[in-house]
């Protein structure tokens, strides 16, 4: 029996990241293998933990034995656990995908794996932590490693993208830090549960100011319009698997943090309206812009933003169905968008210009990759019987139950736009003659397996959504039941204060 | 009697430009020039482009069998100056070849094809130089003066014998009505 404790999520990859150069000194291939074992362990641990976890018994780990609110604690609840598991499993899959992918030499590989480990650490940390300052720390870890990953190829474009990312990320950091300082001056604690309890003491104006700072700061990570200028560049310049990391982990962690502060810490009604409006705007603008893109990865990046907008919309309903739909969407988006980015990196690798117009006839040249790309595209636009359909359906049902017919119409109109640009790519892949014969880099076995696994997940969830709905329902309950969360972390505190 | 200014100007322009052109102003609004067969396209083009003889009225061929020559006649008309310009040239009857001008006036093609078929004049690079009016013709070109149409007719077609008394129809009529054949008609009589 392996010891399963959420602390390993943080400790293990962090430690490995720092020790990896040493391993590299010992035996060079170890730098690839060791992270794999770490990710495998994390994924395995996630499964073990998720089996037992219920909304009413979150696992709370106190770091260094300090009890909250004085010490930092990690909370592995149904919701955070679900996202953490998702991230760790995605981490493992991306490692498996990129294990042999990098042929860039020892130094670059070392950097790549260290940064990958750090990103995973940061993302999981954001998800699991119960301390607002700790969250900021993890956010910085994620951010910095993400900037570095963006510029991994050390090209001009990569550097530019990383710079943009850095610039805007700096805004995010400073705003969040400012917000935390303000918050600390008001409530005198950094524990999120206690903040939540004490929030009503804060003056409304200051509360709103803090909220806005948080909102903008996390909005940047969550790819909210107009704070998402870094996204297209970062996604398109980073190495292929890293784009998947951004879509599957960083963005998820960002939206997670945003949702946590909205749902847990602030009890502002306007926050939900704001989230709804921003979600709608983000979604519409991103999808419309995606339609006009010529480079495949930029298109996917904008599509990713659009999906994030949809997730925001779903969260903004503040109902059980809405949250359910949103979490389902997060899951689907992580899986499907990762698949799309992973396949795309092969497609784009084999073209000269990275443009969609260069993809003619790839269905014949790279049958597996094209097929999986098509599958991903079908899934993400929400065609049944693939998993994307169900999440979209739940969003619509949630919207319908809120009597938001206009929102439904908007979501569906945007879906039409989505269909147009995805099907444009598919029709090029399959129904055009290839212009010239270029030697093709075939996907290696491990990457193929990873992509097939993702594809199978998409199909099986699509055909039998009940596979995943149970977990998501638990997660929903866990997120919405704020009092339970507080009670579990700080037993009795609520009564004391009130 | 007008001054024939434009006519003279035209003639002058032509003779000055081309050495081998000479001609006269025949009457009002008509200029006749003769030239060499080699420079015919040049003269025509000059007349068309510079002297505004934009209208190609007609083109024909004359068989001067005595001189062993074909004479080709091009008739142009200037709608602006209201002058007719007749350009003539002669070619050898034994070797009747001349440059075609259907790239100057498309409609000249029809005339050229007809002349080709009827006189046997070859036009270099003529578009559609194939059977035109005559079908299945296997004799010498019929408009040449050495072609005997009577002989051809009696050889190929069935001459119907006249009536049994073989009298001229005029004689029969005069006999019937008791009148004399008028003098002017006598020379046509078969008897």
């Amino acid at each position, binding site marked *: 029996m392996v010891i399963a404790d959420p602390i390993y999520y943080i400790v293990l990859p962090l430690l490995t990241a720092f020790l990896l150069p040493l391993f590299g000194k010992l035996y060079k291939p170890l730098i690839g293998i060791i992270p794999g074992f770490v990710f495998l362990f994390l994924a395995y641990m996630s499964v073990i933990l998720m089996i037992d976890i219920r909304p009413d018994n979150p696992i709370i780990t106190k770091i260094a034995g300090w009890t909250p609110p004085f010490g930092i604690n990690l909370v592995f609840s149904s919701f955070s656990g679900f996202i953490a598991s998702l991230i760790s499993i995605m981490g493992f899959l991306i490692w498996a995908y990129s294990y042999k992918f990098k042929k860039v030499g020892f130094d670059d590989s070392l950097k790549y794996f260290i940064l990958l480990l750090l990103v995973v650490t940061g993302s999981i940390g954001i998800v699991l932590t119960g301390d607002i300052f700790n969250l900021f720390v993890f956010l910085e870890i994620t951010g910095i490693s993400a900037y570095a990953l963006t510029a991994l190829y050390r090209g001009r474009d990569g550097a*530019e993208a990383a*710079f*943009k990312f850095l*610039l*805007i990320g700096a*805004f995010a950091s400073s*705003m969040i830090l400012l917000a935390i300082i303000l918050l600390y001056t008001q409530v005198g604690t950094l524990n999120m549960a206690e903040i939540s309890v004490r929030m009503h003491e804060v003056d409304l*104006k200051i509360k*709103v*100011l803090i909220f*806005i*700072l948080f*909102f*903008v700061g996390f*909005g940047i990570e969550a790819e909210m319009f*107009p*704070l998402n*200028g*870094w996204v297209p*560049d970062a996604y398109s310049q980073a190495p292929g698997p890293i784009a998947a990391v951004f879509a599957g982990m960083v963005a998820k962690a960002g939206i997670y943090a945003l949702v946590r502060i909205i749902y847990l810490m602030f009890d*502002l*009604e*306007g*926050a939900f*309206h*704001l989230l709804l409006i921003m979600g709608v705007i983000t979604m519409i*603008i991103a999808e*419309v*812009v995606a*339609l*006009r893109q010529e480079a495949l990865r930029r298109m996917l990046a904008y599509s990713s933003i659009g999906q994030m907008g949809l997730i925001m919309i779903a969260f903004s309903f503040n109902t059980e169905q809405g949250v359910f739909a949103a979490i389902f969407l997060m899951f689907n988006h992580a899986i499907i968008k990762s698949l799309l980015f992973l396949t795309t990196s092969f497609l784009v690798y084999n073209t000269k210009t990275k443009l969609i117009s260069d993809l003619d006839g790839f269905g014949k040249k790279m049958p597996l990759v094209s097929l999986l790309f098509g599958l991903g595209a*079908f899934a993400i636009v929400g*065609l*049944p*019987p693939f998993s994307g359909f169900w999440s979209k*359906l739940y969003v*619509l*049902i949630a*919207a*319908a*139950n809120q009597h938001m*017919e206009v929102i*439904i119409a908007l979501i*569906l*109109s945007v*879906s*039409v736009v989505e*269909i*147009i640009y995805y*099907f*444009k790519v598919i*029709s*090029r892949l*399959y*129904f*055009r*003659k290839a212009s010239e014969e270029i030697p093709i880099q075939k996907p290696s076995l491990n990457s193929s397996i990873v992509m097939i696994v993702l594809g199978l997940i998409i199909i099986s969830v699509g055909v*039998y*959504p009940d596979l995943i*709905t149970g977990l998501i329902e638990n997660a929903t309950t866990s997120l919405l039941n704020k009092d339970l969360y507080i009670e579990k972390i700080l037993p009795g505190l609520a009564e004391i204060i009130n | 009697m007008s001054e024939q200014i434009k006519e003279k100007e035209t003639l002058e322009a032509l003779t000055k430009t081309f050495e081998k052109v000479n001609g006269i102003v025949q009457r009002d609004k008509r200029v006749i020039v003769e030239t060499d067969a080699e420079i015919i396209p040049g003269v025509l083009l000059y007349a068309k482009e510079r002297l505004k003889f934009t209208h190609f009225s007609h083109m024909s061929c004359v068989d001067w069998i005595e001189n062993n020559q074909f004479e080709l006649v091009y008739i142009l008309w200037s709608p602006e100056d209201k002058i007719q310009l007749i350009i003539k040239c002669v070619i050898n009857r034994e070797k009747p070849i001349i440059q075609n001008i259907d790239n100057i006036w498309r409609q000249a093609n029809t005339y050229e094809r007809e002349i080709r078929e009827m006189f046997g004049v070859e036009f270099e690079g003529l578009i559609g130089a194939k059977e035109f009016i005559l079908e299945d013709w296997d004799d010498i070109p019929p408009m040449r003066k050495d072609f005997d149409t009577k002989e051809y007719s009696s050889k190929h077609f069935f001459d119907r014998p006249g009536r049994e008394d073989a009298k001229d129809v005029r004689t029969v009529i005069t006999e019937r009505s008791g009148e004399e054949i008028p003098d002017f008609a006598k020379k046509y009589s078969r008897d």
Partner: protein
Amino acid sequence: MMNSLFLLLFILFGSAILSYIGHRISETLGNIIVVVGAFSASIWFFVGFETPAEFSYKIADFDALWSFSSYSWIFAALVSILSPLALLYSTSYMKGKERLGTFYFNFFLSILGMIGITMSQDFISLFIFWEIMTWSSYLIVIYLGKDVEKVGIKYMIFSAIGAYALLMGIVLINREVGSLLIEDAFAYFPQIQFSTQLLIGILLLIGFSIKSAMMPLHVWAPGAYSNSPMSYTAVFSGALSKMGIYGLGLVFIRLLSSGEFTLINEIFAWAGAITTLMATFYAIIQDDAKKLLAYSSIGQLGYIIVGVAIGTELSIMAAIYLAILHAAFKGNLFMAIGAVEKQTGSTDMTLVTGLIRKMPLTFFSTLVSIIALAAVPPLGGFVGKWMLYQSLLASEHFFLIIVIFTASTAAFLYSFKILYSLFLGQEEPEFKNIKEAPLPMLIPMILLSLFLIVTGTFPGILFEPIANGMKYLGFNDVNWNMSLLVNAWGDEVNLQHVSMYIGTIFIVAFIFISLKNRKRTRYVTTKDISTSGEIPLPHENLSFKLNFYKPFERAISPVMKKTMDSIYDEIGNGLNALFQFIRYIYSGNGQGYALYVIIFFVLLLLLKNQIFGL
């Protein structure tokens, strides 16, 4: 023990997979699998189980129920008859094409989708099957790789709009009714607020009418019908479009039955009628046989929409009857044109000519289908049209009847054009060595032709299942004779007399004209015509083909100036320009993005009172 309905889908899905694999191995093996799979599914459908078989399950917290109602059974039967014939035809038609595995995979999936739609008694599985049908048909539409951007995307956009309208309606039903079972929806629908009822109704109608190519939502159809391989178009136009009709029937008769929606009925009836008229006009001016038939399909579907939208007993009956017949004759026509295409390599009516002596059987089946299409009495098309007119007369839709009658008359124009241009006229030396289509292509055509001939004289054969279906829709006492048509006022048409009389006179006259001067009646070639004594040279073809209906075109030119296509194009261009403008928000400038962040932050601060209600 596997459920019989599930097994039906399983056979289809299995055939899809197996034919894909089979075609990867060898074409013959694949073809055998295709034919066996298609026919076994069809046979299983007809003899394998009793109609009331049921299969209920829960998927993602929604109740789902599969079962054939007597109404949906008609449409399922339509699919089950037409699709194996089309697949049999396809084995020969598609010979030697690339990626046959993919083609047949999608073909089977779309059949599965159609069967699934008809067996779904809940909206969620209906929608899932609907979408499966849509994307599999999309993949076939662009299969040949022609006009992928234009036709394929257009089809997909309109399908998506339709499907999403449907989805929105379904979601709203779920909210109001709390269940997605179709029966529940019917039962609780009248209790819903009127405006919501209206919204749901319109959404569902839009969703369904897009598939049945109703103007102004038809623009995808001509391209999609003519672009896919003809063997699929036979099913596409014959059966797949009927899924829209199926849905329209459900919505009009069962859902919007309260009598407050007559305006919608009228609007849809008029839309159907105008669809018919305009599509017929467009069919007349086409020069490509496929395009012509595509427009003709739209036109014929217009009649059916009119019938469904009017919603009286007779009109529904007419609509279903016409739907069945349309499947038969349009399937047959597309197959025949496909045969011409296969044998000559073209369907351009200005090029292909004089095939009657080369492909007599193809001509025969085209002729029979055209007679049915043009609703000329001895064949079945007349019965459907007759019922439709009678229902319109009885329900006092005067001008509607004029419009569709005019369209029906105008349909003669293109009917003749397609027969004349392809099969009649002078023979072309280029097509000297053309052979009759191969047997797998002929058998389906001949079978469908026989079906049309029989149903013309004895429409009662079809009336029985239709009457069953009508019971599901709430018309209980439908009672029709084998071949006697009676309208609301007691006037009747006795088809048996008609057929007998026509048959007799035809035979008598035939004997007379054939025996008279039999020895000195000769066949001469079509080059031997009186053209002022001139002899057409072998390479000269005097058939009058180009601008065949130019005078008619001139006469109707005022209404043809602005097409729906051009309107949509204008909208599309406008949106494109707008999108291009929006695109420049992402300028790619880092400082700009930073500025956005600051502006956004400041804006939020400024608007905080409005947002947070301070």
